[in-house]
């Protein structure tokens, strides 16, 4: 893990900045404390392929939900029955959430023609906040980004912290889960999802 710069240096610089810049900087300072282990290597540390997503035994039904995406289109989880679905709970200010997002996109693209869907549920942020962040991502997500503005769905799933991800089988049952960031762009992850499709 690399260190964060000193608060002394930051505060001096931040005080001279226009307010939005200052806020962004200060937010990042605190977020750095939250997300100091968000590097790719840290995400992958000590996670064997089997451990990347832990098994949910017995599988439990995923709570159904209906949420809007960034275009206002409503997505209902039950409409994805028959597909494997990766449901990811995140927020733009959460460093490990940000770190894993490109790997989710790569996974999604690699399985584009398969019965597989990705739904990422932003927690408690406005449409503008999320939309602005999407433009900064490379690659930018092509899967639906949904707004769980009151975190009602997160609470229904029993999410304790973000990021948390669930893998749902084609019958609508949660079969795997991961608390904390992961690297989703792995052959093991693709194999796991392809096994669910058969």
């Amino acid at each position: 893990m690399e260190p964060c710069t000193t608060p002394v240096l930051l505060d001096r610089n931040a005080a001279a900045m226009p307010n939005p810049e200052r806020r962004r900087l200060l937010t990042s300072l605190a977020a750095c404390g939250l997300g100091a282990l968000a590097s790719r290597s840290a995400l992958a540390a000590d996670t064997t392929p089997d451990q990347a997503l832990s098994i949910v035994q017995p599988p439990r039904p995923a709570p159904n939900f209906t949420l809007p995406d960034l275009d206002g289109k409503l997505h209902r989880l039950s409409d994805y029955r028959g597909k494997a679905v990766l449901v990811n709970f995140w927020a733009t200010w959460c460093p490990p959430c940000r770190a894993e997002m490109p790997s989710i996109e790569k996974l999604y693209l690699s399985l584009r023609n398969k019965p597989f869907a990705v739904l990422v549920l932003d927690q408690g942020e406005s449409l503008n906040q999320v939309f602005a962040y999407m433009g900064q991502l490379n690659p930018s997500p092509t899967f639906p980004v949904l707004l769980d503005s009151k975190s009602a769905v997160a609470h229904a799933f029993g999410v304790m912290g973000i990021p948390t991800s669930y893998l749902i089988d084609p019958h609508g049952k949660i079969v795997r889960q991961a608390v904390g960031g992961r690297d989703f762009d792995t052959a093991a992850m693709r194999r796991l999802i392809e096994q669910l499709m058969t």
Partner: protein
Amino acid sequence: MRRNVSIGTSFLLAALCGLPAARAATPASASAPDQASTPAAAASVAQPSWANHRHAFTVRLIQLSPEGVRGFYENMGYPQAAVAAIARVCVFGTSIHNRGKVPISYDVADWRAVTSDGRQHVLITKTSWLARWKPDGIGSDWSILPAQQTLQPGDWAQGFTTLDVPRGTRLTLHYSWREYGTLHYARLAGPQCGSDAQP
């Protein structure tokens, strides 16, 4: 005296969060003795952090300044009263990880911070913060470390841990966790509450 900003914000952000632009900086130490850990990087360039990586359940605390905490919650849109409440207390960025082979459970309510005078201080849990913030209209929060949680092997989590002690206080964190039915204890010595920079 304040300095003008001579380098771009993006560089500072990169430096803050260990992105490639800052990778040449001093690396943090990966592990620490059971009960005594040291600041993870040179004090002149890093936010001090302390870690105990000796057990399956690893804990790392990162010092945060009150100004940083205030800015974080203001930017999150929290009401001023809620921001003021958390900016008044000692806040650490916290990362926990299950590096073992069995599920691990913890309860922050069981953890204690012991200061040099021997006094024990309970941590202010997420549950407590939600109760304190409820009058301010906050019903949900993702920034504070979950008060209780079960982490499967490979799972990890981050969030703020908080306690009500004066700025600059140095402490030893006594924490515990369960691996199946067995209760384990460990200590993390040295964390120091952050202070705002002097002008």
